[in-house]
């Protein structure tokens, strides 16, 4: 990334990286682009806005959990492999511990009627949050084209006919990419 990312405005030490990511992770905003931008670009001036956007578009383009892809690009730029390792460890430390605690509580008390009730109430909201994320992404102008058929095809294959993801990617992805390549815009 060295060719595309400019020199950082301030070079953080590994310790500073650790503390900053630990705080973003612990306050629960580790998955949030807004908070990462605030931490890296606005508050600490470790990155220029363009470099941030650049890293973001790459990490959204590639598969996998976005935040780790992002940390790989940024961490590498700031401090190489140690930068990546320190950043991702720090970011994930507190959420991981929370998950262990929540998981243990679930194992112990998950079957209590009150807890089952709460979880039954959260699930429809989680479904709604997912579907609204789908709606937001679907509003992209890219989908105002025959490519929308590919979205419907994918939904039917994965959601209704329960086709495996490798199969979906093997069959629909090449078709969709070919269709996208054939349309000039």
């Amino acid at each position, binding site marked *: 990334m060295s*060719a595309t990312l400019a020199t950082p405005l301030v070079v953080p030490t590994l310790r500073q990286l650790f503390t900053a990511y630990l705080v973003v992770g612990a306050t629960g905003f580790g998955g949030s682009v807004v908070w990462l931008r605030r931490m890296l670009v606005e508050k600490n001036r470790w990155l220029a806005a363009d470099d941030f956007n650049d890293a973001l578009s790459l990490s959204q383009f590639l598969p996998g959990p976005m*935040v780790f892809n992002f940390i790989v690009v940024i961490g590498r730029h700031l401090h190489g492999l140690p930068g990546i390792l320190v950043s991702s460890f720090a970011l994930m430390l507190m959420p991981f511990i929370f998950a262990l605690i929540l998981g243990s509580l679930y194992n112990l008390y998950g079957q209590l009627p009150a807890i089952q009730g709460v979880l039954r*109430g959260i699930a429809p909201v989680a479904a*709604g949050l997912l579907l609204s994320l789908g709606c937001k992404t679907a509003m992209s102008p890219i989908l105002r084209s025959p490519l929308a058929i590919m979205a419907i095809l994918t939904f039917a294959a994965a959601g209704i006919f329960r086709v495996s993801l490798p199969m979906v990617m093997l069959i629909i992805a090449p078709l969709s990419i070919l269709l996208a390549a054939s349309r000039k815009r």
Partner: protein
Amino acid sequence: MMDSVFLGMLLNFSLLSLLAFGGMTAVLPELQRVVIDRNAWIDQRTFTDLYSMGYAMPGPNVLIGTMIGFYLAGTLGALAATLALSLPAATMTYFIAKVWHQFRESHLRRAIQRGLLPITVGLTFAGGYLVARGSNDSWLGYGLTVVTIGLVLRTTLHPLWMIGVGAILGLMGWV
């Protein structure tokens, strides 16, 4: 410790990592298929519980996988699931980041990005549909799902409020 569930999870999640175009939400249908339908590691109810907790919990979405890993194989399982879901993709990112600037403006890169977007959208809808179908056993549940969609798209209300309201409604036994 290295039993078949643990190894199966490790292998399946590593593959999912490389197929997760659009992030964790896009692999939800496949996660359900692998964990519930094909291997019967977890039943639908428990999966929905773990999913809801992982999704509602503030933090990266990969926590959904962490919760599943913990349920299947304890702390080591949580660690393995988290790493399996993130490490393969992160490694790929590491190497592609080196050459990214050569492809950023290329026609092929644009075609791939545009072509994958509808797939991400289809997968996200499929995931939401499956969670709704798996969890909502009353019309009120579906109503809550629809209201949530409306609130997210029409207002700037923070999702935690909606999760809180859902939790209270559930506690009262209304959903």
